[in-house]
């Protein structure tokens, strides 16, 4: 393999635009093509001299890609993953990898069959505080871990006045709400920190009546003896992120009131002129004055894994573990709701 990756960007909206900009900043990646349904975004990207497609299938078929980043709506993840894997593309897919356990199993089977590499975009593993946590747990400086809690309050309605994509209101297209969208980050983080899960219990609630959960609590017990609590919430207007790990000897907190790094999305903010200048000058360098860019780190890790033929983590099998937990909580709550309705 060459010393760089030919990358295709499927979906250049919110998250996809970050991947696109990071790919342009890296020296070992070359953006071969971009696919998005927004004509406005495609026209902006076209000006940078990158071939654009309005359909991701066309992009995958017409280009020789080493890797693809998938930042499409949830319901398109499975089809795009399977199509890309058939073409031998390595995949960086945004969370959730699939809408449900069934789809996740299909993707995992396909990945095993084709032998390509798939990484799920779990960016929280790259938060510097979380990496310090991991090191501290591995070194044993906190003692035996007793308890961990994770709160993640964000979601599509938390930012003021932001246009929300229509597919988000369709439960069939999203596959779930707060638990699938935010809870999966914390579940993955705790599995990464504490290892195998022994048992799970969960509770979800719907206040917005949109057909899926907007609040979720999951309590997890790990085989190493740690108990953890995950709270995911779409209802608050103030984004909040807090992970606390309490050991026998010490505790560590990763805390952010405004969870979000410097957002240089293509939809709003800077003029194309400024963007071009930024892109030109920022190639190969992280946004140093703007804090650690977790999405840059994530993509950098993925690219290095592909180039060095290592297995990137979390992969499809790791997502299966998360999907099993989410699926269990949803099923458990559906049964409880049914029992309650019948008793009334």
């Amino acid at each position, binding site marked *: 393999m060459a010393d*760089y990756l030919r990358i295709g960007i499927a979906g250049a909206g919110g998250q996809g635009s970050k991947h696109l900009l990071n790919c*342009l900043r*890296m*020296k*070992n*990646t*070359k953006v071969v093509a971009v696919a998005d349904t927004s004509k406005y975004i495609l026209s902006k990207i076209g000006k940078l001299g990158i071939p654009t497609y309005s359909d991701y299938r066309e992009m995958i078929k017409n280009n020789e890609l080493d890797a693809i980043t998938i930042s499409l709506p949830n319901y398109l993840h499975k089809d795009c993953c399977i199509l890309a894997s058939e073409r031998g593309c390595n995949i960086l897919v945004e969370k959730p990898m699939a809408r449900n356990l069934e789809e996740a199993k299909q993707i995992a089977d396909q990945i095993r069959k084709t032998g390509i590499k798939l990484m799920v975009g779990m960016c929280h593993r790259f938060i510097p505080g979380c990496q310090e946590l991991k090191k501290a747990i591995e070194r044993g400086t906190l003692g035996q871990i007793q308890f961990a809690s994770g709160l993640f309050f964000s979601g599509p*309605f938390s930012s*003021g*006045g*932001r*246009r*929300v994509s*229509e597919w988000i*209101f369709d439960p069939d297209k999203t596959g779930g709400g707060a638990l699938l969208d935010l809870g999966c980050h914390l579940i993955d983080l705790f599995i990464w920190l504490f290892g195998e899960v022994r048992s799970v219990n969960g509770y979800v609630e719907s*206040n*917005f*009546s*949109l057909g899926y959960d907007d609040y979720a609590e999951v309590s997890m017990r790990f085989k190493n003896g740690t108990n953890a609590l995950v709270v995911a919430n779409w*209802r608050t*207007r103030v984004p909040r992120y807090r992970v606390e790990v309490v050991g026998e000897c010490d505790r560590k907190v990763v805390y952010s009131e405004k969870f979000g790094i410097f957002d240089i999305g293509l939809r709003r903010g*800077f003029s194309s002129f*400024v963007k071009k*200048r*930024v892109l*030109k*000058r920022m*190639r*190969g*360098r992280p946004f140093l*004055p703007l804090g650690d860019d977790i999405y840059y780190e994530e993509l950098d890790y993925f690219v290095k894994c592909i180039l060095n033929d290592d297995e990137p983590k979390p992969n499809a099998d790791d997502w299966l573990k998360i999907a099993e937990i989410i699926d269990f909580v949803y099923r458990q709550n559906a049964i409880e709701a049914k029992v309650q309705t019948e008793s009334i």
Partner: protein
Amino acid sequence: MEDNTERLVSLVDTSRYHEITEAVMQALKLIHFDFNREFRKIAIKPNLCYYWKSSTGETTDPTLVEAIIDILRMKCNADKIFIVESDATAMRAKYAFKALGYEKLATRKKIKLLNLCENDSLPVPNVTSSISKEIRIPKILTEVDLFVSVPKLKLHSLTGLTCALKNQFGCIPLRRKVVFHNRIQEAIAFINKLVPPDLFVVDGIIAGGKTPKKLDLIMASSDPVAVDCVAAEIAGLDARRIKYIAESEKMGVGSTNFKCVGDDMQSFAETFPRKGFVYRLSRKALLKSYSFYLRFFTLEGKIFKKQPGFGS
């Protein structure tokens, strides 16, 4: 002879009543609302600006709308009731109805939810200005016997205040209302002139100020200018400085000559979460930080040497 009822603004403290319906009834009685008339077709326009619940102080409480529906059904033999709202730049009415509990309310009360953007609209009869060329009137609002506006009492970054007059801005059956933002004062006054509601019942149960705060207030009036003058006073703003109020009065939408009836305005004014000097300062700081980023990126190239990117 001067008609005083036109300018009466009633203020009712909802905490004194067991049911919100009683409070609304009291507010309507105080402004001598004529219940003896028969309204077959009624449109109710709440303020649903985004997918935020009424507890955030941003949107109208569906329980207040429910109380109004109950009263109108009971007293005026209302046959067809519509809850109307139009799409906004960042909000789709059908999802807002669903997320904010209006869909459940509609099923419960057997009423219709209408998205004004998806229904028929008429051109403005006498084109007088550039705004009147662009604005259309929702047909349904010209056909109803009673048009009730149920605004939320809150502060607004662009206009200063959102209450009776500003709520009508949501009647423009256009998704991208942002095109009117540079002449919003004129647009608000104009749409109020075109489709004037007959009754205003203001939701000040949780007011949106610096923070949302429980105010337990319901206001009622048939004059939007008078209501907004009272709302401005409660919010600690000078009504004379809010341009759309002056513009509306000039156009003959209402009068600033009002009389408050019911509970004391002062107690609500003291509770209202006002935005102070720090807020204004932080807005300036935000603008400054934005210009800093722009300056930084233009200067950055001069500080660091250019690095050749991929392929160069």
